[in-house]
């Protein structure tokens, strides 16, 4: 793969945590390398507890890594900042701020004036379909609407890459489907580079150009699955043969990994 034109390059990333139960450390992942092209949509799946979220937080610079390098537009990522937009798993909206003021938070933290920021926010409120809810407080919104705010808040700072951490995990099945379709629509309009962590294989495949499959801990990349389904994708592609075959394939890998890790935990006496 051509890495020089890539938007985001991860080279040989390694991370371990100090173990709380015993001396020594727990290897979270090791030797993670891949490159993401501009405007590419990457999904990241793997068995639960494999360190997907940790990986994403490292990409954002929220937590440090031990070894390896992350390059965004050729520059090393060392700390969080507005060049990356992070969409949190729980919406993490500030409960004392209205929809409008939650969305402009990122701009405000960069020193933008409130009036100017609010004007800019109107476009993003419309983009995520929240027009008319500007002055509502988070507790007045449904889970799906809260995640729309979460998304708009990340998009408004115009990040180079959008990092999404299981943003639809807590939504009910119907809302999740709708949000997936809308996310694709928004992605099509904004052409952001996206890294989307999920534990749902179907979700990963539906959204992504490529799906990165992590192995069980210590995680490494098992496979990068290319999703050749043409866009725009309607929700009905989820029932096409091509899609189901891909899902089967990814399922197979993850099942293998889950069984492997269960076997190991049994040996270690955890289970």
């Amino acid at each position, binding site marked *: 793969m051509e890495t020089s034109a890539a938007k985001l390059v991860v080279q040989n990333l390694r991370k371990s945590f100090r173990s709380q139960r015993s001396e020594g450390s727990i290897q979270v992942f090791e030797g993670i390398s891949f490159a993401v092209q501009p405007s590419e949509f990457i999904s990241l799946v793997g068995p639960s507890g494999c360190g997907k979220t940790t990986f994403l937080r490292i990409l954002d610079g929220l937590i440090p890594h031990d070894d390896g390098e992350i390059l965004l537009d050729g520059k090393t990522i060392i700390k969080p900042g*507005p060049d990356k937009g992070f969409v949190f798993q729980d919406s*993490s909206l500030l409960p*004392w701020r209205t929809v409008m003021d939650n969305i402009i938070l990122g701009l*405000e933290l*960069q020193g933008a004036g409130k009036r100017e920021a609010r004007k800019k926010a109107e476009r993003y409120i419309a983009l995520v379909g929240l027009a008319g809810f500007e002055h509502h407080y*988070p*507790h007045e919104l449904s889970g799906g609407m809260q995640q729309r705010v979460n998304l708009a808040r990340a998009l408004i700072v115009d990040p180079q890459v959008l990092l999404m951490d299981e943003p639809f995990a807590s939504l009910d099945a119907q809302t999740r489907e709708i949000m997936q379709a809308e996310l694709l629509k928004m992605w099509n309009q904004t052409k952001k580079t996206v890294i989307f962590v999920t534990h749902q294989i179907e979700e990963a495949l539906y959204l992504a150009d490529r799906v990165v499959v992590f192995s069980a801990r210590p995680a490494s990349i098992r496979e990068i699955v290319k999703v050749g389904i043409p866009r725009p994708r309607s929700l009905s592609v989820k029932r096409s043969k091509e899609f189901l075959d891909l899902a089967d394939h990814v399922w197979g890998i993850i099942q293998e990994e889950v069984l492997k890790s269960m076997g190991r935990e049994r040996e270690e006496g955890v289970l």
Partner: protein
Amino acid sequence: MKAVAKKEPLVPAWLRSSRMIGACSVIVGIAIWQLAYEGLARTHYYEAYAIHHFLASPLQVIQTFGELYRSGELLRHSYFSFLEFVYGFSLAIVVGIPIGFMMAAQKKINYYLDPWVSCIYATPTVALAPIIMVWFGLGIFPNSLVVFLGAVFPILLNTYTGIKSVRENLVDVVRAFGGSPLQLFFKVMIPDATPAIIAGLRLAVGRAVISVVVAELFGAEAGLGFMVYFYSQRFLPGPVFVGIAVLVVFGILSFMALEKVQGWLSPWYTYQLRREVHGMEME
């Protein structure tokens, strides 16, 4: 099907609200007190045991209130107590909130101060009041100091807990956008800790009112606590109950005022609390 005649409810709706029921309960209680007193006054015990030196009826209390108010005595005492409360409570806020912040923000400061805070907090203010009188004499200043000691710890400790329990995910949001520590403090820590701080203030109000009375019992030349003590020594229950009633009303009003402040500063909190308590789901 038999037609069921709709009966008019015995008690109209406006009388069935929780507030009305509470008010009625208090009124009935006072009425019983009045009737019991009247009943007692018609027996021979009243004279034999000089009941009027020990008890006063609500009507007598109201009458005494009028007399003390007109003579200016009540206002003078209330003024002194109020000043002690305001000085002591303000000082407790000015000292308690910043120290609480610092202890939560800096582990080292916490290591140094925590044992002191624990010790002084555990010391009953009642036990400190006499020695403070010995050091500083009688007057508003030493009494305010007692009020300060009574009120500062709930404020300090609640501020500490409030800052310590600021939600990690909200901190992450500010960090993810590259916010500075100062922005983190003002945009997340303070607003998220506000409900806890106000809860501390509400606890402190109660303790401050108690401290006002305690300080004045040990030594004062004026004040509601002093008034209560003075008249009970002279077996005049009327003014004693007037003093107590004024303290009660003051305590309740400050408590309610802080509740309003809470609703005004953190309207989101009321909702969150309700959801946590009742497990209410968003629709």
